[in-house]
C-alpha cells in the first residue's frame, strides 16, 4: 500500500509535488549558472538580455585563471596517484593484516573525513608555518592527501573485502609468486574499487577549498581559492563560466563512473 506507487491514493499527489519541488530546488541553481555564463548581462540579469561567450573569453584570456586551473589539476593529479598507491597498501594491511590495533588504525584513517575541515585547515596552517610549507606545491599535496586518503581507503578496502582471497591463493598454487598473483589477479579483480578511489581522490583535492584558502600564497593558488577570493569581491559572470566548466567536469566524471558500473554489471 504505502510502498506501492499506483495504490498510494491522494498521498501520491503530495509525494509528486514535493519531489518536483525538491528536484527543481536542486537542479535550477545549476541550470541558472549555466545560463548566466552565456548571458550578456554583467549584472547577472535573468533571463539574460542576450547571449555571449564573452565571459569564457575573459576567463581564457586571464593567465591567472589558467594558472590556478593548472595548479589545481597538477595537485589533484599527484594527490590521486599518491592516494591510490598509499590507500591500496593501507587497504591490504587493514583487510589482511593480523596485528593488534587494526580497527583503531582503520578508524584513525577515516577521521580526517569526519572532522570539521576548518579545524584541520587552521591546524595545518599553523604547522606548515613552522615548516615553511604554506603556499608550496608539497604543502598542498600533503594536505589534500590527508583529505583524499579516507575516500581511497574506503573504496579499495570495500573492493578487497568483496574480492574472494581464495582466487589469489588459486593463482599462487598455479605457480604465480605472491606478488605476481596480486598484480595479475587481485588488482584486476578490484579495479572498480581502484577507479572509484582515483575519482574520489581527484575530486577531494580538486574541490578542496577550506585548507587551500589558508595555505594559498599569491603565487600558488588553486582554482577554488581563486573562485573564493573573487566571490568575496563581486559576483562576476566569469565565475559562472568557471562554474559551468566545473559542472561539465562533474557530469563527465559521473557519466564515466556510471559507465564503469554498467561495465561491471554485464
Amino acid at each position, binding site marked *: 500500500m504505502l510502498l506501492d506507487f499506483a495504490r498510494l491514493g491522494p498521498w501520491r499527489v503530495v509525494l509528486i509535488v514535493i519531489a518536483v519541488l525538491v528536484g527543481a530546488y536542486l537542479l535550477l541553481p545549476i541550470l541558472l549558472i549555466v545560463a548566466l555564463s552565456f548571458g550578456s548581462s554583467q549584472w547577472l540579469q535573468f533571463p539574460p538580455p542576450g547571449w555571449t561567450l564573452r565571459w569564457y573569453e575573459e576567463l581564457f584570456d586571464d593567465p591567472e585563471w589558467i594558472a590556478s586551473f593548472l595548479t589545481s589539476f597538477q595537485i589533484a593529479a599527484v594527490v590521486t596517484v599518491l592516494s591510490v598507491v598509499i590507500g591500496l597498501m593501507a587497504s591490504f594491511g587493514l583487510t589482511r593484516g593480523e596485528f593488534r590495533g587494526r580497527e583503531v588504525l582503520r578508524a584513525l584513517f577515516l577521521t580526517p573525513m569526519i572532522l570539521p575541515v576548518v579545524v584541520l585547515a587552521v591546524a595545518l596552517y599553523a604547522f606548515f608555518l613552522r615548516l615553511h610549507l604554506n603556499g608550496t606545491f608539497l604543502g598542498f599535496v600533503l594536505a589534500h592527501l590527508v583529505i583524499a586518503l579516507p575516500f581511497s581507503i574506503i573504496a579499495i578496502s570495500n573492493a578487497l573485502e568483496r574480492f574472494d582471497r581464495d582466487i589469489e*591463493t588459486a593463482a599462487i*598454487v*598455479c605457480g604465480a609468486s605472491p606478488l605476481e598473483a596480486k598484480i595479475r589477479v587481485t588488482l584486476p579483480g578490484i579495479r572498480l574499487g581502484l577507479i572509484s578511489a582515483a575519482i574520489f581522490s581527484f575530486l577531494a583535492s580538486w574541490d578542496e577549498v577550506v585548507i587551500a584558502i589558508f595555505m594559498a600564497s599569491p603565487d600558488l593558488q588553486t582554482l577554488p581559492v581563486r573562485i573564493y577570493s573573487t566571490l568575496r569581491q563581486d559576483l562576476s559572470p566569469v565565475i559562472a563560466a568557471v562554474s559551468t566548466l566545473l559542472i561539465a567536469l562533474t557530469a563527465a566524471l559521473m557519466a564515466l563512473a556510471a559507465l564503469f558500473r554498467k561495465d561491471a554489471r554485464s
Partner: protein
Amino acid sequence: MTFLEISNISKTFGNVAAVNDVSLDIAQGEFVTFLGPSGSGKSTTLYMIAGFFEPSGGDVRLGGRSILAEPSNKRNIGMVFQRYTLFPHLSVAENVAFPLRVRRRSAAEIGRKVEEMLALVRLEGFADRMPAQLSGGQQQRVALARALAYDPPLLLMDEPLSALDKKLREEIQDEIRRIHRQTGVTILYVTHDQEEALSLSDRIALFNHGRIEQLGKGRELYEAPRTRFVADFVGHSNFLDCTITRSEGESADIVLPDGGMLSGISLHGAAVAGARAGLMIRPDRLRLSPLGQAAEPGIDAVLSDATFIGETYHFVLATGWGASVNVRMPASRVRPDEVTMGAHMQLHWEATDARLFCH
C-alpha cells in the same frame, strides 16, 4: 610404492589441535579421499600439503623429497577449491593458460595445452567465455582444467562439488573419475559426503578430531569399522546398550537390558566383564521374523513404524526396554500382511554382522 608421504603432521591454532599427528602414504595414481565431519581437520591437512599452512610438526614428502621448505607456488601441485576461484577478468582459455603463462611457456605450447585441457573437461566451445557466463558446474570444470594444465603430479580438491546441486554433482563425479583414469594423476579429495567418497575413491581416510580414525577401502570402512565413530559415520547403524559378561580376545558375551544373553560377538577394544558397550548392527543386516521362528540370536521387539520408500521398507521397532531399532529390507522381501503396527516380532542377524564397541 609410496609417492606422497605424510608423516606425523600436526597443526595447532592457538591451543586448538586442528590436525593431530596424521600419517598417510599414498601411491602414485591413487585416489584418496579425506572424509569426516565439519572441523575434523581435512582442509587443514590439505592446506599443509598445498603450503598455505606451515605444519606445527611432521613432514610431507613428494616423490621422496620434503616439500615443506618450498612456497606454494613452487610446489607444482594442482588444486581445485570449494568456492569458484576462476579469475573473473580472464576468459576460460586465459584462465587455463594462466599457470603456463606464469611458467613462461611458449605461445604454441600454451595454445596446444589449453585446447587439450578444454577437451579433457569437455568444454571445447567455451574458450572465449568469461567465468561469469558459466554455470557453477562449468566453472568447476574449468578450474579442474586449470589445475591440470601444468601436469602436476598431485591434484588436491577441497569439496569442489559442495556448491552444486545433487544431479550436477553426480555428473561431475563421473567426469572426475574419467579424468583420473585418463590422466593417471594422484588425487587427494576432501568431502563430507560419504556417498561421494565411496563412489570416487580407492581409499578413504576418515577424519575425526584432527586424527585419521580409519584408513582403508570404502567397503572395509563400511563392513569392518574399527571404532564406534567409523561405524556411526559410514552408513547407518543401530547401537544397543549392553553389558559385557565375559570377554576373551576379540570375542565377548553380553547381556542386554532385558536380561537377554548373546555370546561370541566380535569385540573392538579391550573390555573387562561388567563394562558397558554398544552392540552395533547395520539396519540392512537385520531381519524380522514372527516370534519364535528364528534360529539365530535375536531380540523381541514391537513394530512401531513402517515407511515404504520405493526399493526398500524402513521399519522402526521398539525393544522391551524402550530402545528403538531401525531395519531396512528390500521391499520385495516384505509381505504386506507382515506390516502390522504393534505386532511382536523377532529381530535377528548373522553373528558376523554384529560388533561390540566399548564405551
